[in-house]
């Protein structure tokens, strides 16, 4: 049921003021009639302004949180768009079914997962969340309810996958879960002392492991540039022994600290300890799925540690051919600025063609980092990074973005004109107006 949620994005930057919020509760309701435009708002886990609608109306979808059907024989599930991935896991893991693709937090709605075409640690094998969707219903401002899928209104479906909520309201969606023997993951962790080490591991282990991702110490420079820990996992076998207990109730950041708790000296120490805690030789172990897939879900409201000014995330993808050089250049730039944070993630995407017209994942290397918002210094760093991404022929992830220019958006998303044809005229967002150069 609906939580007591304020209508901000996860990064809490930028701030936006919708003129109204309409809470949806039943999927048979028509869209509310309002002056101005509307934007669906799920659980507010997008970082920047793609879930904001400054001066418009938000359609809060968390009240649409019902299951329509679930077949425990085949794993086919159909649910309303406001259902959280965590609610699906609670229902199905005990019966041996897991999400086919999951992002790094389970507190996103199904509608949000589709609208941002989210990816996970198994992108190289499974593609994105949108690839898993077999069918969905789209409620348009014309009042039409259109069923779409890979073979049904395929062009509108492709626009809606990764369509940032701009093609209409997704009321429900259907997708297939994947079989697991138990809730555990067999994890192998390998330390690498330089960026080159990452590429050796990533291009090797991706064949053997279903899930791969690397944590990078973005404060290390020089000989240690791009050092980090490579994590590779598979769902555990039925006979796995020594399985850990699931984690207990999550602690939470209970209040808003008056300033950011992320400061350079403590970060440097934290990153150093995290890196050196990992032995030189690879380690293996069995973990519950929650800490493996959702390490930050273990701390409620962790976004508060960045203080009242909020933070920005920067997630880019660059083609593999130039991936090593471009990533090195970006890491040098970040290490030199001293602004990076501890949440730095590097992954090589697979080469499955995108499910959506505006999907972010594409063949290449993706780098994601958090930055506490420090005004002009942060924006200047982002401009430099943008130049590197543009030179490499890369793109920025809309779900994480609050800054990219219309030019960079157009360069990263060449199918934008095709997408425009499917826009619902009553739908818009702060992000969309910004990256298309309209008034914010």
């Amino acid at each position, binding site marked *: *049921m*609906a939580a007591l949620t304020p209508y901000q994005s996860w990064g809490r930057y930028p701030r936006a003021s919708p003129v109204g*919020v309409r*809470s949806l*509760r039943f999927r048979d309701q028509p869209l509310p009639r309002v002056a101005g435009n509307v934007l669906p708002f799920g659980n507010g886990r997008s970082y920047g302004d793609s879930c904001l609608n400054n001066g418009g109306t938000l359609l809060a979808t*968390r*009240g649409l949180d019902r299951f329509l059907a*679930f077949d425990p024989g085949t794993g086919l599930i159909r649910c309303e768009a406001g259902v959280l991935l965590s609610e699906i896991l609670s229902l199905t893991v005990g019966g041996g079914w897991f999400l086919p693709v999951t992002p790094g937090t389970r507190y996103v709605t199904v509608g949000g997962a589709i609208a941002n075409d989210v990816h996970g640690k198994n992108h190289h094998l499974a593609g994105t969340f949108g690839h898993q969707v077999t069918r969905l219903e789209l409620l348009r401002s014309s009042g039409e309810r259109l069923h779409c899928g890979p073979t049904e209104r395929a062009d509108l479906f492709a626009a809606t996958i990764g369509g940032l909520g701009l093609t209409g309201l997704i009321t429900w969606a259907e997708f297939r879960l994947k079989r697991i023997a138990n809730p555990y993951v067999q994890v192998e962790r390998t330390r690498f002392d330089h960026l080159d080490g990452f590429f050796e591991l990533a291009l090797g282990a991706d064949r053997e492991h279903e899930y791969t991702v690397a944590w990078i110490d973005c404060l290390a420079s020089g000989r240690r540039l791009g050092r980090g820990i490579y994590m590779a996992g598979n769902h555990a076998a039925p006979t796995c022994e020594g399985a850990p207990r699931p984690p207990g109730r999550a602690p939470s950041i209970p209040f808003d600290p008056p300033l950011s708790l992320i400061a350079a000296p403590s970060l440097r120490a934290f990153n150093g300890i995290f890196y050196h805690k990992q032995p030189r030789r690879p380690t293996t172990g069995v973990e519950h799925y929650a800490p493996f897939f959702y390490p930050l879900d273990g701390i409620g409201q962790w976004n508060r540690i960045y203080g009242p000014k909020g933070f920005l995330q920067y997630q880019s993808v660059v083609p593999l051919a130039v991936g090593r050089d471009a990533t090195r250049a970006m890491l040098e730039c970040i290490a030199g600025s001293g602004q990076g944070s501890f949440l730095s993630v590097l992954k090589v995407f697979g080469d499955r063609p995108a499910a959506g017209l505006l999907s972010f994942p594409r063949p290449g290397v993706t780098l994601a980092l958090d930055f506490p918002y420090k005004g002009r210094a942060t924006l200047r760093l982002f401009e430099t990074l943008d130049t590197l991404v543009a030179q490499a022929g890369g793109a920025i992830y809309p779900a994480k973005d609050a800054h990219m220019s219309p030019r960079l958006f157009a360069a990263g998303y060449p199918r934008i004109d095709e997408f425009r044809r499917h826009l619902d005229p009553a739908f818009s967002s702060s992000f969309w107006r910004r990256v298309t150069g309209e008034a914010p």
Partner: protein
Amino acid sequence: MTLRVLIVGATSAIAEALARRYAAQGATLFLAARHTGRAEAIADDLRVRGAAMVAVGAYDATVPDRAEALVAAAWEALGGLDVALIAHGSLPDQAACAASAALTRRELEVNLISVIDLLTPLANRMQSAGCGTLAVIGSVAGDRGRQSNYVYGAAKGALAIFLQGLAHRLAPAGVRVLTIKPGFVDTPMTAAFPKGPLWASPDRVARDIQRAIGRGARVLYTPWFWRWIMLVITLVPAAIFHRTRL
């Protein structure tokens, strides 16, 4: 043993939250609602969540003489009832009621008479069966008449007295009667309002109701602190109370 649960007003947020809790335990449920399409959507959800069986029936509190048939249909569909939750109601426009005796009467019929119409046959059937719980959603508004909300308060206050008497009558038969008094509940309809610490989620309220039914409580303030808030409000002398805008 499978719990057999009737919920009247099944599309309300509190009722739905409670239904999910019983569904997860494998209960059988009968959902009565004015909007049967929406009740069917809830029924599908409850089946996925583990309900052994869910049936849906039409019920409109503004139409008289339907209560007996509804109770009979639910009793038959589930083979008896262990819990009946009555959750329907309306929130009257107090100013409009002050200007219209007819509207005041209609609000009293929906919030009081229609509930009693259901309680009478339910009580008689449960008395004969020698078991069961009648759980009825009242309100803290029924504890003291206030200028801003006294028509609703009168309905809920009268209902509380009726339930008190019913509980007295049914105690020897082993039938429990629970009067539920929620405070401010954050339903999706009020999601856009600014919330203070007094607001509770429907699921929190549903959890309290489920526990109160389980332990056979007679009166439930939910969340718990409303018992003390209302104690203070009922103790304030009229000379002072009348100077407030409560």
